[in-house]
């Protein structure tokens, strides 16, 4: 049985819709992981101990357990205690929080790396600690950390395939459905790999643009 790529056009719409879901999940989770990461970093650095510790335990759990397990827990587990989350939301939240923990580590480092003179200058103008953090420190910390955060976003895109296990018809699951009807795994997996790669290129292009823009303000 040779390869036959002619089966693809018939199933292309399913696969492309899957690709759109993958993009939607990735964007949603990217936003959650970005702002969640900043939030976790601020908590880790500045919150009083009784707030910091619960978040530390939370972060440790997210870092120390498989993402797959976390998705199962959010989607299948929470129902038992009365929290019924749609699969898409569970995927975005699970993926987003998982990467928020990774991003938090990056943000913490970059917040601490912002020159102390910046905070001093803001404080001598009369800004409060939080105002200085929000308008002076965080924007610079974020700017400095865009390249490694970008790498995390690309890892996030790839890990979005895991969301297929809780039944979101994203790219990987759509491919499996097409394969189920055609028995042509190689053709569809190659196609899907190409689509992931294209989305990846798109993300990298966006990241490069962002990096170029922030270069101006260095």
């Amino acid at each position, binding site marked *: 049985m040779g390869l036959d790529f002619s089966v693809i056009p018939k199933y292309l719409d399913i696969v492309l819709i899957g690709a759109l879901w993958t993009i939607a999940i990735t964007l949603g989770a990217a936003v959650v992981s970005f702002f969640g990461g900043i939030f976790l970093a601020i908590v880790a650095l500045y919150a009083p101990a009784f707030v910091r510790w619960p978040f530390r335990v939370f972060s440790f759990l997210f870092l120390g357990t498989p993402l797959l397990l976390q998705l199962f827990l959010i989607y299948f587990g929470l129902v038992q205690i009365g929290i019924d989350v749609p699969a898409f939301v569970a995927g975005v939240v699970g993926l987003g929080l998982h990467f928020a923990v990774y991003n938090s580590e990056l943000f913490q480092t970059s917040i601490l790396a912002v*020159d102390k*003179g*910046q905070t*001093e*200058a*803001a*404080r*001598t*103008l*009369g*800004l*409060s*600690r939080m*105002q200085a953090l929000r*308008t*002076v420190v965080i*924007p*610079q910390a974020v*700017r400095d950390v865009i390249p490694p955060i970008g790498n995390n976003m690309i890892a996030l895109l790839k890990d979005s395939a895991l969301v297929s296990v809780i039944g979101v018809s994203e790219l990987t699951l759509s491919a499996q459905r097409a394969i189920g009807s055609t028995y042509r795994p190689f053709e569809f997996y190659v196609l899907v790999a190409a689509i992931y790669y294209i989305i990846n290129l798109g993300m990298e292009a966006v990241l490069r643009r962002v990096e170029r823009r*922030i270069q*101006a*303000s*260095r």
Partner: protein
Amino acid sequence: MSDQKPFIDIRHAQKSFGTLEVLKDISLQVDRGQIVAIIGPSGSGKSTLLRAINDLDPLTGGEVWLEDKQINKTLPHRQYEKHINEVRQEIGMVFQHFNLFPHLKVRENVTLAPKMLKGLSDDDANALAEEQLTKVGMIERIDYYPSQLSGGQKQRVAIARALAMKPKVMLFDEATSALDPELVEEVNLVMKKLAEEHMTMIIVTHEMSFAESVCDRVLFMDQGVVVEEGPPEVIFRNPKSERTQHFLRNHLAAAG
């Protein structure tokens, strides 16, 4: 000195880092409109004293007053924060390394605090920025980023940023020490202009000729104490203390 209450009153300032005592019972009164230079070798405590005025380096003993307000009050955390943020709005500070906000354009550097703290509208804030930047001769660079400016230009913007809060006093912490020699003059000119407008200023500096031409009083500090103070012509031409003489001689020799 006049018989009214001093504008800035530092009483028995004392500061230790662990066992190291960097300020040893320093008292200093500055009247409104006065310009005071603090000179001395590095490590003499002059920057620490300056930074104690807005409580950036809190004293371990003594009091700092601005008019009828004590600056370094002991208060519960929240109340202290509110108090110090209000006080700092009245005290402008200029740093050796400018500390402009690199992610903001010149205009936004100047408007940030007035907008946030005084609730100025965009229009009012812009007008304010234009006014202050014109004063320091930087209006043409209003839409530049700090990274696109020379050191002297950065420092002039930093001065405009501080002035935009309409402070009652300006503190200069070695404002020209990080500049290339040819850029010092443009910053000095701005400071002279402020002097002509009777801005109260306390200036930590290594620029002896500038201090002599602009200041009403000069303090010479060494090892955490004020060794000698007086009018610039006395301190620079006719210092009584041997340590002052020694310092000035070395300084002149170093400056060539």
